[in-house]
């Protein structure tokens, strides 16, 4: 099982993701520079958090034109697992691999805090067996306010593409539990095919007890198991 971690100029969470993969999960990591056109045979590509290209113009607006993103797009079209975290979620939306956009937090503040998410799907490669679970994870972002037009939001709900919602520790949504004003309390969405996930919270920062939580490791384990079963089940 090999994870690829994309590094753009300005990415800041690449080593955190790599550490989670290598030391918490025990899998192989390969760092992919933004100029790379070859993904090196990875099973899952992580687009990590940070400020790719300084977040100039809009977060993710410039990153989507980098050579590695062409390879990521082709990989996703072949069914490869693509996992955008924080800035990576913003990049996936700008690239059109996920619908909608992330605008400045309603509070206009950079929010850096622990919070709770309700996992709405337990059947995805990223969330095997986690349906209905309330997870505790940190966020750290200024532009995490997910917005889309009403038709897109309705379609996402109909098709079960909202994977994570901000909630309280009991799994209840609404009120103070939404840190950024996201429509429908969206913290993460998946594409229709189920192989491209974008989420604002940081699972790589809660993959070891020393970091204050291990719920993030559940997602890394899920991806590793899914990749193994894909490999064992013939051509994926």
């Amino acid at each position, binding site marked *: 099982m090999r994870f690829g971690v994309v590094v753009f100029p300005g990415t800041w969470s690449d080593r955190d993701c790599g550490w989670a993969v290598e030391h918490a999960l025990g899998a192989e990591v390969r760092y992919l520079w933004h100029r790379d056109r070859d993904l090196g045979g990875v099973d899952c590509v992580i687009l990590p958090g940070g400020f790719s290209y300084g977040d100039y*113009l*809009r977060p993710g*607006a410039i990153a989507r*034109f980098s050579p590695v993103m062409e390879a990521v797009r082709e990989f996703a079209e072949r069914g490869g697992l693509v996992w955008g975290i924080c800035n990576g979620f913003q990049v996936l*939306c*700008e690239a059109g691999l996920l*619908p*909608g*956009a992330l*605008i*400045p*937090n*309603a*509070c*206009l503040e950079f929010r850096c805090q622990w919070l709770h998410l309700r996992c709405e799907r337990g059947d995805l490669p990223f969330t095997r067996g986690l349906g209905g679970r309330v997870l505790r994870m940190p966020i750290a972002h200024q532009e995490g*306010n997910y*917005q*889309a*037009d009403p038709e897109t939001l309705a379609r996402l709900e109909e098709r079960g593409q909202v994977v994570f919602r901000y909630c309280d520790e009991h799994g209840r949504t609404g009120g103070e539990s939404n840190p950024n*004003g996201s429509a429908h309390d969206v913290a993460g969405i998946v594409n229709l095919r189920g192989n491209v996930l974008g989420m604002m919270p940081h699972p790589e920062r809660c993959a070891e007890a020393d970091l204050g939580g291990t719920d993030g490791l559940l997602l890394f384990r899920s991806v590793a198991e899914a990749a193994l079963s894909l490999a064992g089940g013939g051509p994926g």
Partner: protein
Amino acid sequence: MIARVIVAPKPVVNDPQGATVHRALTSLGFSEVSGVRVGKYLEIQLGAPSVEEASSRVEAMCRELLANQVIEDFRFEIDPGPGPQP
């Protein structure tokens, strides 16, 4: 030529910056303000054989990069600049 491009949040999209500026103006006594939207202004120097050609190129720039049409609208004007000197 110079293209002057304005990118602004779509009317249906929440604009937290605009709302905050609106509240600040109200608190300063500008009670006549009924709404504020905060966007971006870009000045682009470019060469083109005609204003029409420049317009179609700038339109493409806006669609491909300068505006995210999920959340933003754009508009622009082309300033042909000083004409050839006699």
